[in-house]
């Protein structure tokens, strides 16, 4: 099987509500999974479930054909997660935050300059994250994503708070990531205009 | 594998619900019988203690309560551990149901001990005595366990989080039991559970044993009854509970 990531018969409960049952998907290298649905339909929850931060009531997610719960740690080193919240410390500077990330993931900071330049953050490295604007903070989260060098990107509304140049940049980054055989799972309210193969899930 | 299947069948809520209903009367009857024998034997037939006179008779409540407070904790911690590791929901229900019972026994042991301590040691309470303190700590552990559960709305999450606490708190049990040997304490050393057999006269011993086992059976009955209620609540949205509460044909 060439499917790298697959979800089988997934079912998720939140409180009294059943968000979805019998959800299936399969994704191979270079493919993108677009999760759509109205507000509150469970997109964020699905992403958290895939990442292993929420337990599915039923079903399991496979990575390289093996259930992720079997070797959760190996799975984690292959994935990076862009959430609603940036997940950085507001009191540390941009640079300190990214340094910490690279220590945690044991990656090099070699192409840091390039990444920051590309994201338009180069002049902000010395500022504490607290003073950055909403969009700038999202860009820092994107920087983590690029530096992490992970195979699977989980992105929850990657376009929010970004200006139009920023949104175009995200599409470009995704396209590059797919081109080198990466995988993306994206929850978004707006379509993505890409050449790469896109699979869709619509939750209701 | 057979054992595994058996366990899973046992742990299935509807099966347990029915089975427990059959066991409870036996436990209750045995418990009450032992309790009555122990109470009569202890209060009327056992000779007064040569040192303590009749005051010693409180032993028939104090010791069973003290033992049960520990037993309940052990049951709770083991059930919580099983639930956490093998993800058996019934097990969590057992742990959750054991906590309030255990807290009551602990409270009873503390109160009776302290009433007994007044004539024996000339004080209701002695801070810094290891046995007394560790027993009090156990009461707080029970409180912490229940408070943590109450603070989490999501039952599944409450189960797992409180299970950790129950397991961590289990270190207190050996401390309670061995405290009298490890440190100088006002409290009695072990009289019943000793390598060289119980050091107590049989007319005093038998009623005491009866009380201990009577308390245990009653605890078992109460625990099972509480677990039944808990299971019913947890499974409130399931088919079988629905059928149970509203038998077929009885539509509203």
């Amino acid at each position, binding site marked *: 099987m060439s499917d790298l990531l697959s979800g089988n018969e997934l079912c998720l409960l939140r409180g009294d509500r059943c968000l979805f049952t019998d959800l299936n998907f399969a994704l191979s290298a270079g493919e993108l999974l677009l999760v759509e649905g109205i507000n509150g339909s469970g997109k964020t929850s699905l992403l958290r479930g895939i*990442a*292993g*931060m*929420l*337990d599915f009531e039923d079903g399991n997610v496979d990575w390289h054909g093996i259930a992720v719960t079997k070797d*959760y*740690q190996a799975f*984690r*080193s292959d*994935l*990076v*997660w862009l*959430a*609603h*919240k*940036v*997940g*950085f*410390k*507001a*009191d*540390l500077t941009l640079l*300190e935050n990214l340094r*910490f*990330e690279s*220590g*945690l*993931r*044991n990656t090099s900071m070699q192409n840091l300059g390039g990444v920051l330049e590309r994201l338009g953050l180069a002049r902000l490295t010395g500022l*504490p994250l607290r003073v950055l604007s909403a969009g700038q903070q999202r860009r820092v989260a994107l920087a*983590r994503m690029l530096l992490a060098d992970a195979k699977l990107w989980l992105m929850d509304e990657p376009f929010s708070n970004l200006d139009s140049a920023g949104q175009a940049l995200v599409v470009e980054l995704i396209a590059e990531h797919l081109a080198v055989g990466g995988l993306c799972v994206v929850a978004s309210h707006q379509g993505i205009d890409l050449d790469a193969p896109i699979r869709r899930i619509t939750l209701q | 594998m057979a054992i595994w299947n058996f366990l899973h069948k046992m742990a299935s809520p509807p099966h347990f619900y029915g089975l427990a209903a059959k066991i409870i009367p036996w436990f209750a009857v045995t418990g009450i019988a032992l309790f009555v024998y122990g109470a009569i034997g202890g209060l009327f037939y056992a000779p007064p203690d040569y040192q303590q006179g009749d005051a010693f008779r409180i032993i028939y409540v104090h010791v069973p309560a003290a033992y049960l407070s520990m037993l309940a904790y052990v049951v709770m911690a083991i059930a919580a551990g099983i639930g*956490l590791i093998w993800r058996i929901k019934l097990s969590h229900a057992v742990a959750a149901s054991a906590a309030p019972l255990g807290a009551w026994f602990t409270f009873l042991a503390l109160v009776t001990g302290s009433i007994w301590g007044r004539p024996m040691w000339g004080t209701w309470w002695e801070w*810094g005595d290891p046995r007394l*303190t*560790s027993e009090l*700590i*156990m009461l*707080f*552990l029970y*409180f*912490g366990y229940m*408070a*943590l559960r109450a*603070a*989490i709305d*999501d039952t599944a*999450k409450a189960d*797992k*989080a409180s299970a*950790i*606490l129950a*397991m*961590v*708190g289990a*270190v*207190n049990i050996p*401390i309670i039991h061995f405290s009298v040997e490890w440190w100088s304490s006002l409290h009695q050393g072990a009289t019943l559970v000793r390598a060289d057999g119980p050091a107590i006269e049989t007319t005093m011993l038998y009623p005491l044993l009866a009380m201990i086992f009577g308390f245990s059976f009653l605890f078992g009955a109460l625990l099972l009854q509480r677990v039944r209620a808990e299971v019913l609540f947890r499974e409130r949205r399931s088919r079988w509970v629905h059928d149970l509460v509203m038998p077929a044909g009885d539509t509203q």
Partner: protein
Amino acid sequence: MTVYEEQFPGLWQGFAAVVKRDLTLAWKRPGDVLNPLFFFAMVSALFPLAVGPSQEQLQLSGPGVVWVAALLAALLSLNSLFLSDFEDGSLDQLILSPQPLPMLALAKALAHWLVAGLPLVLVSPMIAVSFQMPGQTVEVMLITLTFGTISLSMLGSIGAALTVGLHRGTALLSLLILPLAMPVLIFGARTVSLAAANDPVAAGIYFLAAYCILTLTLAPFATATALRISSE
């Protein structure tokens, strides 16, 4: 709990990164370091003030006051151990990082001790002097406080992890931690009192050391599991 094989060379690198980050944060918000310290000094200073300074009474209650102050100071700062990480989403990122979570939990608890526990140990001799504690006692106090505060940080990390998603208050945290911390307090205070009375103190110190090692080995796993549950 997952079993972690030795396949990750950078095991200590994530550990170091977390410790470094938390120390930098503490450096940027000196309040976090000064807080427990200040609290500690305050309790010790307020006491004579409120109780009225009778020489011998002070001397008698010295070890107790120091230990209670240390315990409260530790509890006070524990509340925020994972809270800010939880609120700004960093906790999710830590959990999803390729490092073994118990390792990161250990790093967080250690950083907490460095920031909140160690300064307290270092400042305690000053307070001991203000309570007219005899000289040879101070050494015993330092040793017991060291072991004690480490245990408190480790135990506290379990409680903080269990309660992180729940409340802002420390009430539940204290309720969970105190029973486990009580032995530390009692042994700590008693050992120092014994030292003041020139009685043998080895037993107390051994106990505290054993408790410290026990918590150092077991607490990270409990904390990691609790964090996963809380972040659900």
